[in-house]
């Protein structure tokens, strides 16, 4: 048969094969499906792992970038400060400090516990054990001994899982390190205010004297009196009256007339007297007492021919000698009834040259009775006192006689007589003794000089021109010293006569002494004293003159020592003092001046210095700024009591132009100089903590403090006070201020409560914001050119461009007008008073004041760059 159906067995086999094949295909498909499932799972797991790793790394980096660290060096310790601003705890794993000499200090777990001062969020310990966890929002400060080496880099490694190292380091290897050094000041109470600049230190300065001490002085007589010690006159008359008491006429017609000075005696001969002449004579018998006398008379012819002159009569009045001026122009000596019985005889004659009958002539004669003769010495003078003639003669006749009655005579003439004197002494002269080199003048009643003489301890003054000086009652003797100064004057109570003797007696003794004391570089004196120490050997009076003004008059006996104030009206503009001492006593004395000195208290140019004024407690201290920056301790140069407490509401400023210190408190602005405080104005006052005062030219700017929002300005030149509103700024207890040119620079709060640095130009009243200050408060502020230094008192708050943080006290520097502040020094050693910290900048040094110290911080140039903090993460 040809076609056969497939057997059933075959169909079954094919079916089975098909089923097997399908099963195989299913198995293969399942294998592939399993493969892809496994493969995808692997890939997903791997991807998740990778993502996890990347995420962790990113989180670590973010954590590290939130960890801030800086370090500083205070000269002995390295201080590393770290703040964990991340949200998770970081682990400090290791610390490495590299020193300038190439050595290093490394600390990690392997070192175990090491010596260090560790503060974590205010909790301190003296051991450092690494690794050390720092919780979120906590800070860590590690202080390690630098072992006498200068660190240049300090780094810390931290782990934020996975490990990252944070390195705090300076940018350069060689770093000038700021050092802070405390000068103990021991504030008596919290609160301080400072000012730095040129100030005059009130100083007591001694003048230089021209003379050296001790000085020995001897008194000299300074006040004299003149006394008459002798009178030669037996009798005298100026013939001012007629009849002259005690005189008697013998013949003649006698009367009073006008004479050469005052009155005169006029006698006209009537031939009724002895010898046919006429006599008028002193009716006292002198012969018993005197054998020798001087007689003088001044006479002038009136009319007639004959003679007129002096008559000497004997006791019996029957004989006479006549010494006369004859109308023929001669001086003649006649005798009557001596050489010729009952007759006249001329004994001698001498011509008077240039005789004029109209002239007065003074006849001076001295008779001396000797054993065998009566001698006559005759001199004739004109009215000027010039001798015009003289002669000497004798009467030797047995009828010679000792003159008993002396007077005047006229024979054949009418004549005038004046200045009649009978004297035992030479009437031509007045003798004055006791002179010390000066001169003597005898003056008549008209003030005209009768005669004068100079030099010699005893001098004779010629008064021959007016022997009975003046009109007989009013002549004077004046004694002058060699300088022409009147030493003494004698006014005759009766008269001054030729033949008188006078003596000059010292009445007062004096010792005087002068010296010139010069004070140098005087700006202004507030007081001055003369220091005087002397010893006298008797009781004296002391007069002290300064620049010609009597300052004091005292009785001094024995030792004297005192400081005598010079009146303030003599101090104005004075710096040279001429000091004169005058001591007087009634008897001679000696003085030893052991001390004479002038000391002045005030301002002197050589005591105008760079001063740091520190107000604390209740006083203001003047420190020498130059010494302050190098001294370990310093005494103030001067203290001023303020009577008010510096508690943040009281501030000071100083005007270097007129050296006036200003202080503001709740009552107003007070000005001080060494004489004391005075209220400058009550138009500007402090209102609360944070008060400040600054001086710009004549403006006194008061920042009233919390909670004010204005600057009160007092213009001293116009005596007006006015407020300048600050609009959005307000002062608070941490306000700080300084002067920059004509502006004041200050910190204040803005409308959002942030701290800003602003300036107010006092000439234009323009307010300008200079910078946003990254501080929660600023207690002290100083300006040095374009830099502003601020001492803060709390955490600073970050601003753009400043990627650093710190706590404690920092000093910042800013370019004025650029709101970018950088840290220049960490002065964590400062213990804060907060509102009352201060900073001043002086040369290359910052001077800060804290609770217990003046802190002197040496700063090198560009220090702020050196201290920039770099943060690295790997």
């Amino acid at each position, binding site marked *: 048969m040809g076609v056969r159906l497939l057997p059933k067995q075959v169909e079954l086999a094919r079916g089975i094969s098909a089923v*097997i094949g399908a099963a195989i295909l299913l*198995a293969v498909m399942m*294998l592939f499906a399993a493969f892809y499932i496994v493969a995808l799972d692997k890939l997903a797991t791997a991807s998740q792992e990778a993502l996890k790793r990347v995420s962790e790394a990113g989180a670590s980096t973010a954590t590290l970038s939130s960890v801030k660290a800086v370090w500083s060096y205070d000269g002995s310790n390295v201080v590393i400060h770290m703040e964990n601003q991340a949200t998770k705890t970081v682990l400090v794993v290791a610390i490495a400090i590299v020193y300038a000499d190439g050595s290093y200090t490394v600390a990690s777990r392997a070192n175990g516990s090491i010596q260090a001062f560790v503060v974590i969020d205010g909790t301190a310990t003296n051991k450092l054990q690494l690794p050390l966890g720092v919780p979120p929002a906590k800070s860590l400060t590690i202080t390690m001994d630098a072992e006498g080496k200068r660190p240049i880099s300090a780094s810390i490694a931290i782990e934020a899982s996975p490990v990252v190292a944070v390195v705090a380091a300076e940018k350069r290897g060689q770093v000038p390190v700021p050092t802070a050094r405390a000068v103990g000041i021991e504030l008596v109470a919290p609160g301080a205010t400072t000012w730095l600049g040129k100030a005059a230190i009130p100083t007591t300065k001694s003048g230089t004297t021209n003379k050296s001490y001790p000085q020995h002085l001897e008194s000299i007589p300074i006040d004299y009196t003149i006394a008459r010690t002798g009178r030669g006159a037996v009798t005298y008359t100026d013939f001012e009256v007629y009849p002259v008491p005690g005189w008697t006429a013998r013949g003649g017609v006698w009367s009073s007339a006008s004479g050469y000075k005052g009155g005169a005696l006029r006698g006209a001969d009537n031939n009724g007297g002895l010898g046919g002449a006429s006599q008028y004579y002193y009716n006292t018998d002198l012969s018993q007492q005197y054998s020798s006398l001087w007689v003088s008379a001044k006479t002038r012819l009136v009319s007639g021919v004959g003679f007129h002159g002096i008559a000497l009569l004997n006791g019996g009045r029957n004989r006479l000698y006549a010494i006369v001026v004859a109308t023929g122009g001669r001086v003649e000596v006649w005798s009557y009834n001596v050489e010729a019985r009952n007759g006249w005889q001329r004994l001698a004659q001498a011509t008077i040259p240039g005789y004029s009958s109209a002239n007065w002539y003074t006849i001076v004669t001295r008779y001396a009775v000797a054993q065998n003769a009566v001698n006559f010495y005759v001199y004739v003078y004109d009215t000027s006192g010039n001798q015009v003639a003289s002669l000497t003669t004798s009467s030797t006749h047995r009828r010679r006689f000792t003159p008993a009655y002396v007077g005047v005579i006229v024979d054949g003439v009418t004549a005038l007589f004046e200045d009649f004197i009978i004297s035992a002494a030479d009437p031509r002269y007045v003798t004055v003794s006791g002179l010390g080199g000066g001169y003597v003048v005898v003056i008549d009643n008209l003030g005209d000089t009768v005669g004068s003489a100079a030099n010699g301890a005893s001098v004779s003054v010629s008064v021959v021109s007016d022997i009975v000086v003046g009109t007989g009652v009013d002549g004077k003797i004046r004694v002058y010293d060699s300088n022409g100064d009147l030493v003494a004057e004698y006014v005759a109570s009766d008269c001054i006569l030729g033949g008188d003797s006078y003596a000059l007696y010292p009445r007062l003794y004096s010792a005087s002494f002068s010296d010139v004391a010069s004070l140098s570089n005087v700006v202004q004196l507030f007081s001055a004293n003369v220091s005087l120490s002397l010893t006298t050997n008797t009781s004296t009076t002391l007069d002290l003159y300064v620049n010609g003004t009597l300052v004091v008059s005292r009785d001094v006996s024995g030792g004297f020592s005192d400081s005598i104030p010079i009146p303030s009206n003599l101090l104005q503009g004075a710096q040279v003092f001429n000091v004169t001492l005058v001591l007087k006593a009634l008897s001679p004395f000696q003085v030893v001046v052991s001390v004479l000195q002038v000391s002045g208290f005030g301002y002197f140019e050589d005591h105008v210095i760079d001063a740091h004024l520190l107000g604390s407690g209740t006083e203001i201290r003047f420190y020498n700024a130059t010494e302050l920056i190098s001294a370990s301790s310093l005494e103030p140069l001067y203290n001023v009591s303020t009577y008010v407490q510096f508690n943040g509401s009281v501030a000071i400023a100083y005007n270097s132009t007129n050296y006036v210190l200003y202080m503001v408190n709740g009552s107003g602005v007070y000005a001080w100089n060494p004489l004391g405080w005075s209220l400058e104005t009550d138009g500007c006052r402090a209102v609360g903590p944070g008060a400040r005062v600054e001086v710009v030219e004549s403006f006194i700017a008061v920042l009233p403090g919390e909670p004010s929002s204005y600057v009160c300005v007092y213009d001293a030149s116009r005596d007006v006070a006015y407020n300048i509103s600050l609009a959005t700024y307000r002062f608070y207890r941490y306000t700080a201020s300084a002067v920059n040119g004509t502006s004041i620079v200050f910190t204040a709060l803005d409308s959002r409560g942030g701290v800003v640095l602003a300036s107010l130009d006092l000439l234009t009243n323009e307010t300008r914001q200079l910078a946003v200050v990254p501080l929660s408060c600023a207690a002290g502020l100083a300006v040095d050119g374009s830099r502003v230094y601020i001492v803060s008192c709390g955490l600073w708050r970050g601003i753009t461009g400043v990627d650093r943080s710190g706590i404690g006290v920092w000093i910042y520097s800013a370019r004025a007008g650029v709101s970018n502040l950088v840290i220049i020094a960490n002065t964590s050693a400062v213990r804060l008073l907060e509102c009352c910290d201060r900073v001043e900048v002086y040369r290359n040094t910052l001077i800060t004041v804290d609770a217990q110290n003046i802190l002197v911080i040496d700063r090198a140039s560009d220090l702020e760059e050196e201290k920039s903090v770099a943060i690295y993460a790997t």
Partner: protein
Amino acid sequence: MRGVSEYTATLIVAIITLAAGAAIFIYSYAIVDSYYSALLRASEEVEQGSSAAILASYIALPGTLVVIGSTGSSPATPRAVYINESLATACSLYFNNTSVSLPQSSATPTPIPPYTAFVIKCPVGSATEHAFVKLVFDGGEAIAKAGRIG
């Protein structure tokens, strides 16, 4: 002619097919697994690469390069130091009173324990002012610049 039994043929074909499929699966899985392993290793290297950090590096006189570092929570095994891209052959590693010469290439290198600071010192030319330093660990490296001080 008598052919091969259909069962036999089917069985042979099934065996061959399964064998081929298994081979392809095994081969593919190996490839995927190798990628997976590589990815994991790379991921781990991210961690291991940060297992040590350099705190400071400088050249101290006279001609000594100093590198100061620290490990983290994992140990680290320094292998070698490259200075200016050249292998430094005379460096010494110091940590925890231990001294090891670098490079260390032995099968059992000395690791630095976790949280441990270490110092590596290498001689450099006395005139060297700056150096670029690369520290090679097992599984990572750390890079720093060093300048001369002193």
